């Protein structure tokens, strides 16, 4: 008995138990429920337990589903590319060009200022700015850059990506900054000493060493964008759809089984994407 109690194995399990319990109750069980419900049948106002592939048949049988998934990937990819570009640049500046640590912390905090309001407010604020008679168009018109208002600024894919990048860049900045701060400065000095150019240092030292940060940021951004529905709804004026909107529309119309089926497919898709990323960079090893 004594030996069992003292075994590392048991202590380990006991230590992990609270977290495990929370995850099982609040993550694993709900996901299982979603999977189960996705096979149920639905009538107008009630859902009937059953084993019915109808929801999946409808999902995979509709051309719109493929368009919507494609659209989701498009949003995710474009947002990822822009947030990575901006996020990396900002983090690089903070980590290597700002000498004093106080200043670094202060500037990093400034990056979080937009987070002091809800992301819905931040997103909706774009609407009067980008509208046909909005600030952006008025400015362009008065500067003579365009002679009629640009329609594509608002209620378009452009607006959706803009809002996504605005909301999510911080999730790239912070992890990348974190890994950059840990890079041993003497490595860079050594590289300089042996005559490496700035580009070479960036490509051969900094990027490889910040990979875990980039990967964590990537996972944040991809999962947030792929699961989002409200940004797409507002910024596209309800005209574009991603998978999240498909699910939210279904839920709004009480089509829970159909929403569950879509969720299951989305979940698997995201897992495959994240799994793929994990294979490219082993975060646990590199951190």
């Amino acid at each position, binding site marked *: 008995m004594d030996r069992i109690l003292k075994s590392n194995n048991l202590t380990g399990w006991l230590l992990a138990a609270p977290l495990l319990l929370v995850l099982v109750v609040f993550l694993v069980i709900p996901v299982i429920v979603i999977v189960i419900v996705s096979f149920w049948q639905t009538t*107008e106002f*009630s859902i009937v337990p059953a084993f019915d592939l109808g929801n999946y048949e*409808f999902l995979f049988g509709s051309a719109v589903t493929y368009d*919507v998934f494609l659209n989701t990937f498009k949003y995710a990819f474009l947002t990822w590319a822009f947030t990575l570009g901006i996020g990396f640049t900002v983090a690089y500046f903070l980590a290597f060009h700002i000498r004093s640590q106080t200043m670094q912390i202060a500037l990093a905090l400034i990056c979080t200022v937009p987070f002091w309001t809800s992301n819905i407010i931040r997103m909706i604020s774009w609407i009067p700015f980008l509208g046909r008679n909005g600030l952006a168009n008025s400015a362009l018109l008065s500067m003579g850059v365009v002679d009629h208002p640009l329609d594509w600024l608002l*209620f378009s894919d452009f607006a959706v990506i803009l809002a996504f990048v605005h909301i999510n860049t911080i999730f790239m900045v912070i992890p990348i900054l974190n890994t950059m701060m840990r890079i041993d400065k003497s490595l860079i000095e050594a590289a300089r000493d042996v005559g490496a150019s700035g580009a070479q240092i960036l490509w051969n030292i900094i990027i490889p060493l910040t990979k875990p940060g980039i990967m964590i940021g990537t996972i944040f951004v991809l999962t947030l964008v792929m699961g989002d529905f409200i940004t797409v709804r507002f910024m596209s*004026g309800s*005209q574009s759809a991603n998978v999240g909107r498909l699910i939210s*529309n279904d839920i709004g*119309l009480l089509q829970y089984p159909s929403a569950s089926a879509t969720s299951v497919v989305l979940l698997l898709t995201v897992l495959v994407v994240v799994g793929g990323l994990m294979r490219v960079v082993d975060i646990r090893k590199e951190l």
Partner: protein
Amino acid sequence: MKKNHYSRRNILKGGVAAVAASAFPAPMIWAQDIKDVTLRQAGTGVSAYNEVAAKVKEDLGFTLEMTALDSDAVTQKVATQPDSYDIADIEYWICKKVWPTGNLQAMDVSKITNFSKIAGTFIDGKLTPDSVIAQGTAPHTVGFVDAVDGKTFAKAPTGWMTLIPTIYNADTLGIRPDLIGRPIDSWAELLNPEFKGKASILDISSIGIMDAAMVCEAMGKIKYGDKGNMTKDEIDQTMAIFTEAKKAGQFRAFWKSFDESVNLMASGEVVIQSMWSPAIAAVRSKGIACTYQPLKEGYRSWGGGLGLSSKLSGVALDAAYEYINWYLSGWVGGFLMRQGYYSAVPETSKLFMTDDEWGYWYEGKPAVGEIKSPQGVVMEKPGAVRDGGSFLERMGHVACWNSVMDENQYMVRKWNEFIAA
């Protein structure tokens, strides 16, 4: 303080109810019991005003908490969370959807003081004795059940109402006359390429499909057997026409909640769109020209009412009845008529409106003085006439009611595809 222990039922029977529900809700002897009650009302934003809650507190003494949601969200709440509300402020088509869940309880009409004054539209469907009932889910078809827990709708009026009707209206397209600059007289104009990128339709499937059907029919592209109960084929054709228009860039945006429609119109992003009366009122009170354009094909109509959660009982249920009686006693009706709705009990509402207001909103007469919104903002100058004219002219030209079809589920999926396309 000694609490009153008379049964409220007896008091009501004793005729005090008339006083309670009248314009002069004197402090009641059982007020102590009811004062502690909080009624939670869930509904669409069109009738959820703080002014109403404040007036309830003042007149009845209990607290009314209001939650404003879009139609789909209200439907969902009523159908799935009966514990989360006491009173459902919903439309008749929503009632048709959610009634079978058993989350609402029917109301005893003998406890409704002004039952006999409720407009005929909600009782037997007849606006005037010789009017023809429009297509779709007309309120009286889902207005009655056989018993308090009745599951199926009664064909004729019974003693049990599903919803107590409060407000209704005839909807049409809203336009910006200043930006269009020519007369608009048909639903078909919504898809006119002239308004490419400047049109909008509402993204609430049960209502949107009806607007879409009005448009397709007006264009002469589809001839419906019954717009309120389309066949799969009719749904496919309707959605095909709209999907094509969407892909061609006809729509600037779709809207789901009423404030979105106000912003689209007020900002000039959209010049023609599905719209609701209070949204028109809101745009106009910003000093922006906006017309609720009568169209030759007729109106798409809706009716709203209050339903009681099946979980309500005891003193809270009494308070709910009291609230509903108060609702029909005129003040709210008058308040909501000022945003262009019709009260289901016009007689009592008239008492709370000036003759000029009544003439403008109900009788379609030119305004004598300034016409103000419910919040007191000036909306119309003297001489203005309501778009569409009098009550009978407007409600007499209803082409269809918002509806829930037999093929609703199919329609919902197709609608979802249209939005995602």
